[in-house]
């Protein structure tokens, strides 16, 4: 297995709270890695470390130790261009957050910020990304309407398309279906299943059930520590650690 992302002894602290404690983990390419666990396990923090979104925290003191390698390169290294990193490692948030722009402009936002302005390229990328996110048929006739007019499920697929337009290598999804109805959730899940052929997908799921439905690799976090990781099949049927079993079977959480 070739690791797309390697995390070595990652510890992350906000003020006096330790959110992640000595996490070591390899994330393979072209699979869906699911990071699950109860609230405050450090799942979102871990995800946000992977494209340095934690850098944007302003009002709290944060400290990170350990190393995160993307294709063998330290993403916290001194020569790393953070905006370029965030293009390569995209993030879809828990609640859909369309920018107050048109559908079209939402999709091309990241490209425009890179200075891309060729109309044909932007048009082509919009169609391609919206198709990949299974949204094209629903919005192709209303690309210039405000994105806020879309339904919640459509908005979340738009946020996915917005990331895909940047042709990233890794897609991070932080509980992307939390606000969605079951039908929309199914659409997002099936998009992800198709996308994994081309991308590395890391996802914090909405529930253990969702984790079991779509994960190839599963990672169980508890109180900032990595308890157990393995193939989804093994974790969800024969967990080795007692705490994993208790969580999956609903004894706590």
């Amino acid at each position, binding site marked *: 297995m070739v690791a797309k992302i390697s995390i070595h002894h990652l510890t992350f602290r906000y003020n006096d709270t330790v959110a992640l404690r000595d996490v070591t983990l390899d994330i393979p390419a072209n699979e869906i890695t699911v990071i699950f666990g109860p609230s405050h396990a450090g799942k979102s923090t871990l995800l946000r470390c992977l494209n340095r979104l934690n850098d*944007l925290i302003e009002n709290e003191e944060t400290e990170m130790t350990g190393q995160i390698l993307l294709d063998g390169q330290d993403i916290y290294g001194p020569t790393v261009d953070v905006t*370029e990193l965030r293009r390569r490692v995209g*993030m879809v948030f828990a609640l859909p957050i369309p*920018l*107050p722009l048109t559908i079209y402009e939402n999709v091309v936002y990241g490209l*425009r*910020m*890179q200075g891309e302005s060729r109309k044909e390229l932007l048009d082509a990328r919009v169609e391609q990304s919206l198709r990949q996110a299974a949204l094209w048929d629903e919005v192709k006739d209303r690309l210039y309407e405000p994105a*806020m007019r879309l339904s919640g499920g459509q908005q979340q697929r738009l946020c996915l398309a917005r990331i895909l337009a940047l042709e990233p290598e890794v897609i991070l999804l932080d509980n992307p279906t939390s606000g969605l109805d079951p039908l929309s959730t199914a659409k997002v899940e099936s998009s992800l299943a198709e996308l994994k052929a081309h991308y590395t997908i890391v996802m914090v799921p909405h529930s253990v059930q969702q984790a079991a439905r779509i994960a190839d690799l599963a990672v169980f976090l508890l109180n900032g520590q990595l308890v157990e990781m393995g193939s989804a099949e093994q974790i969800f049927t024969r967990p080795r650690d007692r705490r994993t079993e208790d969580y999956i079977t609903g004894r706590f959480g």
Partner: protein
Amino acid sequence: MSRQKSQRIAFAILTILAVIVVVPIVLVVAYIVVQGIGAINWEFLTTFPHHGMKEGGILPAIVGTVVLTFGTAIVSIPIAVGAAIYLAEYARDTWLTRAIRLAIINLAGIPSVVYGLFGLGLFVLSLRLGTSIVAGSLTLGLMTLPVVISTAEEALLAVPQRFRVVSRSLGATRWQTVRQLVLPNALPGILTGIILGLERAAGETAPILFTAAAFYLPQLPRSPLDQTMALPYHLYVISTQVPGMPLQVQYGTALVLLILVLSMNVVATMIRSRFRRRRQW
């Protein structure tokens, strides 16, 4: 007394109090309109005063106020908007930003006549700009800064933080985020603040008293270094310095000033309400 009854009484008292707020403004405007409307005609708006200002029009004062307001805009908008962007988007909580905020609060509390005196000392005398449109605009601009900075900063902060995070997560830099996303969404609020600030500057007498205003000029100013007449100062002059001034001319002048300032206010309100209807978040 039942709870419903005391509720009704409280509601009635509050309504009366709210109406009392409206009464003075209506009375002031109505009084000035009634007293001054007779003076206003084409000649009054387009000619110079003559016969010791008792006759003729107020053209140079109108032009002067418009010019000074533009000058104030040129001075204050770049500084105020720049400062607001710095405070809202870049600054962290340090001794420097605390000092800046303290300075803004204090600037807002300084009486306008003190600005006038300061402008006289710095711009007119030390910088040798003389009593001029430039000196007056700089003084008024300075006075306008706190209002514009505070409202602009509020407008910027009203743009939800989540948009900034999304923008950065899509690989935009901080400046791109400000330029492409935050500023366009905050613009109506910033414009409202600018207009409210300029409106105050347009109506002020004290700051231009020693820095820009002339008692009477036989011609319109030709350069930014010329003195100028201005409506508020002209009103002060004809109300206190010219014996035997017809009352109607005084109220006519006041009415013109009022219309100028209120129409700026109307524009600000229109921008705001139009934006509220179009806003998506």
